[in-house]
């Protein structure tokens, strides 16, 4: 398997590109393990002179990042579960069950994809303020409870469930709820896995909404905590890099493990237009 010169150059360019792509992430990891102050020397060192975990320890002891980590986890897990439940139900209903107003409602939901999320954000804040949900987990969760994208995704897959399968269950006397639970849901397994990875990552990485709705640093999610931390600790490069690692590592690890599902979601998203 010898490579010709053209192919050699091609693969070399790709390797160079791959290196440039991961370099910022590798440096983040490396700098997070450097002793305090080492990153702020010239010329900038690539590797720690001595590996230390002191910045991680400081983050989780003095700076209370464990709380933010738990907040992020809570919001992402609950948001993901909620979206799975609501989207699987609605996606199936819009695909397979005839009810009055179905087409009109579905078209209305699709128009939501045209409206930038920021348009509803300020008024939603005022609404939640009236409901006493500002600065609560419930407030952060609100946008993650249902998803037009999720409904759309599930609907596409649910449409392929054979009508005969549902009808024979009906003839056997199964109720609609039972059909949803024991016939439809198992058929939706793969698409729900895709949706789960997608929603989890988006809610984990979300910034603007939690920034708007949270004011108490004990409720901050990781991105908000990080953005506020950099205000006070801008000189502490190594500490900030440790914070970035803590924030990025869970989603990166999830991506590596669940790549297949995530990539499917990207592809499914690309046909929604």
């Amino acid at each position, binding site marked *: 398997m010898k490579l010709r010169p053209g192919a050699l150059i091609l693969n070399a360019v790709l390797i160079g590109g791959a290196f440039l792509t991961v370099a910022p992430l590798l440096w983040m990891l490396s700098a997070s393990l450097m002793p305090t102050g080492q*990153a702020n020397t010239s010329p900038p060192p690539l590797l720690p002179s001595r590996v230390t975990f002191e910045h991680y320890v400081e983050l989780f002891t003095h700076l209370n990042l464990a709380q933010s980590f738990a907040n992020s986890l809570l919001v992402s897990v609950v948001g993901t579960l909620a979206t799975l439940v609501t989207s699987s139900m609605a996606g199936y209903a819009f695909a397979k069950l005839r009810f009055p107003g179905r087409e009109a409602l579905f078209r209305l939901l699709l128009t939501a994809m045209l409206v930038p999320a920021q348009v509803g954000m300020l008024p939603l804040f005022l609404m939640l303020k009236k409901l006493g949900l500002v600065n609560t987990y419930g407030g952060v969760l609100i946008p993650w409870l249902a998803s037009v994208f999720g409904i759309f995704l599930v609907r596409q897959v649910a449409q392929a469930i054979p009508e005969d399968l549902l009808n024979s269950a009906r003839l056997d006397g199964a109720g609609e709820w039972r059909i949803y639970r024991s016939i439809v849901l198992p058929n939706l397994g793969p698409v729900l896995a895709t949706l789960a990875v997608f929603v989890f990552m988006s809610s984990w990485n979300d910034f603007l909404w939690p920034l708007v709705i949270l004011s108490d640093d004990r409720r901050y999610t990781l991105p908000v905590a990080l953005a506020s931390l950099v205000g006070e600790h801008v000189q502490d490069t190594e500490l900030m890099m440790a914070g970035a690692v803590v924030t*990025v590592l869970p989603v990166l690890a999830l991506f590596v493990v669940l790549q297949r599902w995530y990539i499917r979601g990207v592809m499914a998203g690309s046909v929604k237009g």
Partner: protein
Amino acid sequence: MSAGVGVAPAAAVDAGGAKRAPLAGPQARAGLALALPSVALILVFFFGPVLYGAWLSLTDFDIYALADPSSVRFIGLGNYAHAFAETDFWNALRITLVYAFVGAPISVAVSLAAALLVDAKTTRWKPFFRAVYFAPVVTTLVAVAIVWRYLYQPQYGLVNAFLAKFGIPRVDWLGDPHWALPAILVLAVWKNFGYNLLIFVAGLQNVPRELHEAAELDGARAWQKFWNVTLPELAPVFLFVSVTTVINYFQLFAEPYVMTQGGPLKSTNSLVLLMYEQGFRWWRLGYAAALAFILFAVILVATAAQMWLQQRRERAA
């Protein structure tokens, strides 16, 4: 397929040939019940706020109204007039247009170039490259924006150290009004190009091989094949990618928020950042709502324009 003849009056036959349930009865009830949670949540927490925001943008809702809602007055298009009279607004709009119409095309071009390389016949380890190039997409924007803030640091940052190897003098990337915006765009492209790359790779794999072979028989060069075969076949994918990417760049927020706070000299201030500052720092919620609707209108116009251009090109072809 036409509606069935001789089928019981209550049921019709749809394209699949299956009996349709009537619009009342257990199926209809179940359908409504299953759709209800999502529909209700989206109506109450998305469409509701959007309509409320439309009204808000016509009022002088400010920090006093936050304490005493009865002090809110209807001021018609006053907030919009105010925006059009403000230099800050025009500045943010101009910068947002640069993000959208310089940043997004660069981003799409990088994605396409990388996709062509990854999809090339002689490329080895394709899944590996796809995964590596995609990795920044899944990272947390705030975290990597902070990382890049340090990479751009003039004295100790790796970017300057790397460029110094090629004899390029030190630049204060985020501190210089000429360089801060390009620096933010580099971060944004790095963060996002893997997403469109995946979509382009999928599109490239759908280009029929026979078309390439036919072009090769005609003696087409590589770039001719790209221009005359690949690009036209990719047109629908290209439209989707450019529309969604432009929309995303219109909404740029966390990058300038974390890296420059919109500075230096407001040279990186996006519309969403301006909206956030007006709304949540100065509590001018009426004005901020108007800014959100202006952004919405600009995005709609830009999207419609891209679709119209694409249609015209198709008709010309």
